[in-house]
C-alpha cells in the first residue's frame, strides 16, 4: 500500500513498506530478501527503550513555520521536546539568520479522570486558547496512545474547530503504540502537512524540493543545482508556509533519507506528479555521482553534470588520497538510522575503512515512490561490494548494540549519532565520531572532510581510553561468558 492522503491517518511503515526492526545477518542477505518481499521481522526476549512516533511527529510539526501544536496527551509525552526545540528550532534559526523562538506546544495534560470522562472538551478549549494567544497561520493536533485507546474522535473536533476559527488545522494520528518504528512519526508529520498546507498548482518552476531535518550543510549542494539552473526549496525545520505551498510547483524532490523524507516526497509525487529521486542519495563520492547522473538525465543536463563530477573528483583527489593513506587498516563500527547506516557503510568503504558491523535502527525494503525503481542503499550495497558486511537491525536497542560491539572484533572508531551508541562506545574506550544526518555529507568534499574528522579523532584518544579503564559492564558475569551478539529469539519469526 502506498501513500494514501484520503484518510485522516497514515499507514505505518511496517504495513506500508514491510519495514522491520529485528534482523541479524549480512547486508547481502537482508537486501536480497527485502527485494523479494520475504524479509520477516524477529522479536526479542529482552528489549530496552526506544523512541516513539508520537515524539518524532511532535518535533517535526513544531518546527513548521509559526504553527502551534496541541499535544492531546498526558504531560510527559511532550516533555522530551525541549531537545528538539534546540536542534530543530533554535539551531536552525541561527543557521538561517532568524531570531529563534521557542517551540509552541500546548499539552492538554490528560489526567486519569479525562480517560474516564473524555478529553474532547479540553481539546476544544486548548485549541481556542492556542488561537487566542498566538493567532498562528496553522494549528496541528497530535493524538497519543492514551487519547487513542480511550477512543477519542479528535479528528472531528479538528474539523469542527477549523470551521470555527477559519484557519487550517491539521491532524496527526500519532500514537506511539501504533508502530515499533519511531520513524513512522515522520510519516504522520508528512501526512498532516500534505493534507493541510500543500497546495495545488498548474505552474512548474525550476525548483527542487529537499525534505529533511534541517538545511544544515546546504552549501554542499545548492551551488550544483544552481549551475544546472535550479533553486532548492527546503522543506525542513523552520520552513515557511510559502515553502510548503511552493513545493507542488517543483520539478522534482529528494530527501535526506528514506526514513524521514520518503512519505512527503512520495505524497508530492502522487498528488502533484513531482518526480521523487529515491534510488540514490548524494552522499560521499559514489553516491554523489550516481545521484547527479540520475538528476542530469531527468533534467536533460547530462553534460553539465559530467563536468561537475569531473571537477569535484579532481578538486579533492589529493586530499582523498592522503586521508585514505592515514586511515589504512582502520576499522569502524556503525550504528545509525535506516538509510544513513548503509550510506555511511558505503562511505567507509570509499575511505578504505574496514566495516566490522553496521546497526540500522530499522530497515525499509522499499520507499514511497509510485514507480518500481531500485531502492536506495539496498542495491547500492551489493554493487559496492558490501554484500558480506555483517549487519543487524534494532530499534535503537542500545544494550544489544553494546553486546554486538563488545563481542565482535574491537573497532578503531564508532560512527553513530544520538540514541546512546556513541556514549557506550566511549565508555568502553572506543572513540566515536558523529555520523551527521544532513546535507554536509554530500559529495567528495564531505567524503574527504569526514575522513579527516576520523583522522583527527584518532590523534588523541586519552579521554576515551581513561573512560574505558573505568568501565563497569552492566551484564552479569555468566552472560559475559556467553559472548552472544543479539537478543533476537532463535528462529521464531513473527510479523506482528
Amino acid at each position, binding site marked *: 500500500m502506498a501513500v494514501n492522503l484520503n484518510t485522516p491517518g497514515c499507514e505505518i511503515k511496517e504495513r506500508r513498506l514491510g519495514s522491520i526492526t529485528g534482523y541479524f545477518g549480512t547486508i547481502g542477505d537482508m537486501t536480497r530478501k527485502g527485494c523479494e518481499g520475504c524479509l520477516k521481522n524477529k522479536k526479542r526476549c529482552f528489549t530496552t527503550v526506544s523512541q516513539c512516533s508520537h515524539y518524532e511527529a511532535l518535533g517535526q510539526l513544531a518546527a513548521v513555520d509559526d504553527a502551534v501544536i496541541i499535544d492531546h496527551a498526558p*504531560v*510527559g509525552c511532550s*516533555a*522530551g521536546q*525541549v531537545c528538539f526545540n534546540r536542534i530543530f528550532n533554535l539551531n536552525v534559526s541561527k543557521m538561517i539568520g532568524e531570531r529563534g523562538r521557542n517551540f509552541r506546544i500546548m499539552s492538554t*495534560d490528560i489526567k486519569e479522570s479525562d480517560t474516564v470522562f473524555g478529553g474532547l472538551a479540553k481539546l476544544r478549549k486548548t485549541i481556542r486558547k492556542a488561537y487566542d494567544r498566538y493567532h498562528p497561520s496553522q494549528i496541528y493536533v497530535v493524538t497519543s496512545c492514551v487519547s487513542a485507546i480511550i477512543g477519542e474522535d479528535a479528528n472531528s473536533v479538528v474539523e469542527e474547530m477549523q470551521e470555527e476559527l477559519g484557519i487550517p488545522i491539521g491532524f496527526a494520528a500519532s500514537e506511539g503504540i501504533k508502530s515499533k518504528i519511531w520513524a513512522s512519526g515522520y510519516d504522520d508529520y508528512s501526512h498532516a502537512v500534505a493534507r493541510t498546507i500543500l497546495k495545488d498548482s498548474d505552474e512548474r518552476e525550476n525548483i527542487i524540493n529537499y525534505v529533511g531535518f534541517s538545511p544544515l550543510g546546504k552549501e554542499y549542494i545548492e551551488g550544483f543545482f544552481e549551475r544546472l539552473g535550479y533553486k532548492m526549496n527546503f522543506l525542513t525545520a523552520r520552513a515557511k508556509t510559502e515553502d510548503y505551498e511552493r513545493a507542488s510547483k517543483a520539478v522534482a524532490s529528494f530527501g535526506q533519507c528514506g526514513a524521514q523524507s520518503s512519505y512527503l516526497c512520495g505524497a508530492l509525487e502522487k498528488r502533484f506528479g513531482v518526480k521523487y529521486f529515491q534510488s540514490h542519495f548524494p552522499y560521499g563520492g559514489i553516491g554523489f555521482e550516481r545521484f547527479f547522473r540520475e538528476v542530469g538525465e531527468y533534467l536533460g543536463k547530462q553534460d553539465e553534470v559530467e563536468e561537475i563530477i569531473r571537477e569535484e573528483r579532481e578538486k579533492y583527489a589529493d586530499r582523498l588520497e592522503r586521508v585514505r593513506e592515514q586511515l589504512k587498516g582502520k576499522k569502524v563500527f556503525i550504528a545509525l538510522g535506516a538509510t544513513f547506516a548503509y550510506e555511511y557503510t558505503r562511505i567507509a568503504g570509499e575511505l578504505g575503512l574496514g566495516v566490522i558491523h553496521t546497526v540500522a535502527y530499522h530497515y525499509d525494503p522499499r520507499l514511497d515512490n509510485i514507480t518500481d525503481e531500485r531502492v536506495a542503499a539496498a542495491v547500492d550495497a551489493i554493487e559496492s561490494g558490501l554484500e558480506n558486511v555483517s549487519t543487524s537491525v534494532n530499534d535503537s536497542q542500545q544494550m544489544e548494540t553494546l553486546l554486538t560491539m563488545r563481542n565482535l572484533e574491537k573497532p578503531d572508531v564508532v560512527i553513530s549519532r544520538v540514541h546512546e551508541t556513541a556514549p557506550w562506545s566511549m565508555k568502553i574506550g572506543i572513540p566515536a565520531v558523529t555520523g551527521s544526518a544532513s546535507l554536509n555529507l554530500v559529495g567528495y568534499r564531505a567524503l574527504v572532510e569526514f575522513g579527516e574528522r576520523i583522522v583527527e579523532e584518532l590523534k588523541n584518544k586519552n579521554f576515551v581510553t581513561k573512560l574505558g579503564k573505568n568501565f563497569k559492564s*552492566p551484564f552479569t558475569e555468566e552472560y559475559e561468558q556467553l559472548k552472544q551478539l543479539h537478543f533476537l529469539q532463535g528462529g521464531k519469526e513473527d510479523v506482528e
Partner: protein
Amino acid sequence: MSSYIEKPRTTCSLGGALAVLSSMPGVIPISHTASGCAGNLSNATAFNSGYCGSSYCSGQNVPVSNIGEFQVIFGGGNRLKEEIESTFELLEGDLFVVTTGCMTEIIADDLYSVVKEFEDEGKPILYVNTPSFEGDAYVGYDLVLDGIFNNYLKPVKKKDPTLVNIFGVVPLLDPFFRGDLEEIKRLLEKLGLKVNTFFTADQTFQNIKSAPKAALNIVLSRTHGVKLAKEFEKKHKTPYLITDIPVGAEQTDEFLKLVASRLDVEKKVVNKVINEENKNYYSYVERLADLICDSEFKFYYHVVSNSSTALPYAEFLEKELGWIPENIFISEALKKRDIPGIEEAFAQKKLGGQLIFEPHATQIQRKMTETMVRSNGSFYQNTHTPVYVLGSTFEKSFIQKSASGGLYVSYPVYNRVVLDRGYAGYRGGLHLFEDIFSSLVAGR
C-alpha cells in the same frame, strides 16, 4: 476539568520515577510501557538538566517491555514476565523496580501476580504504579521512593541515633541534586551524623537498605518527599523534619541548628562548625565588595524555580546579596493542597516581593515584563531596573531581551553543564555568588 500546560517544566510520574531510579546505585528500572515512553523521558532529562547524561541502565538503556497494539488487546503480562526473566539473567543489579506507563495502566495488566512470582523465588523486585496521568515527575519521585522505602524495605527494631536520610531533592528535576546533596552530607557529617543521600557517587545499595534504621528523615522541600516521609514514619517509626534546602551562610546556620536540636547534637559542636564555616565563607565574600561597589551591582530580581528551591534562592538574593525582590514564581503545577505550605514558608521567612504560582512559560514572561516601568523621560523616575533573573533556560529570551543578567538554575537547564556544582550550604552559597557575578562580568 484540569487545564492545559504550556511548555511544561516537568515530565510525568514515569519520568520522575525513572530519573530517581537511574540515579540510585545498584537499582535497575524495568519499564512496563510502550517503546517510546522511557526514551522520550530520558531525552527530557539527560540533555536538559545540565547535560546530566545517562548512566548504568538508565537513559536509552532502560529495560522496557515495549508493548504494542498486540499487547493492548491481549494483555502485556506475558511480555513483562519475559522481560523480567531476561533482565535477571542479563543485568547485574541489587534491586529491580518495575514501573508502569499510561497504556499498561489503562489496559490494567496484573502486575501484582507477575511480580509476585519473582518475589516468591526470592528475587529482589518490586513494582510501582507510575502512569503519566497520575501526576508530574515530582509525584513520580514520591511514588517510587514510597515503593522502595515503605513497601519493599522491612521495618527494623534498632535505630541508629546518628543516621539520617535526606529526601526532597529530586534527581534531575533539581539539576544540582548531586552537588547539593554532597554539601548537605559534608555538613551533617561534621556534626557527627551519618547521612544517606541515596543519589551521590559515594552511595551504595547498603545505604538504601540501612534507611529504616535512620533516627530522622530530613525533607529539604515543602512539597516533594513530604508524603513519603509521613508514610515512612507510619511504617518505620522514623520522625521527619520538613524544612527548606539551605542556600548560603545564613540559611545554613539555621538549618544546622534545627537539625542539631532534633538529634541532640551538642550546641558546642554545632557552634564550632558554624563558626568555622562562616569564617571560611566570609573570607571569600568580603573580597567581593570591591567588585560590587565598583560596578554598582544592585538589581531587582525575579526567581523562577520549583517549589523546593524558589524560596531559598529568593531568600539568598534578598538577605545575602541585598537585592530588591520583585516576583518569586513557583513554576511547577502544584496540587492545591501544597500551596498553603509554600505560602506559610514565604510568610515565615518574611520575604519581600510577590509569590506567584505560575506554570505557564509565557505568563511568567508577561508578569516579569509588567514589573518594569516604561521610562517617562524623567531622570528621577524609578523604572524598576536593572533586572536580574534566576530561572530556567526557558527564561533565556526574556533575560537576553529585557534583563541585565540572569543565571540558569532550574529545570530545564540546557545552556550550561552541571557536574558536582551545587548551591546548597556554605560552599553552595559561594558558588552562587561566583556564578551570579561571573554572569555579570562575562561580557567584559
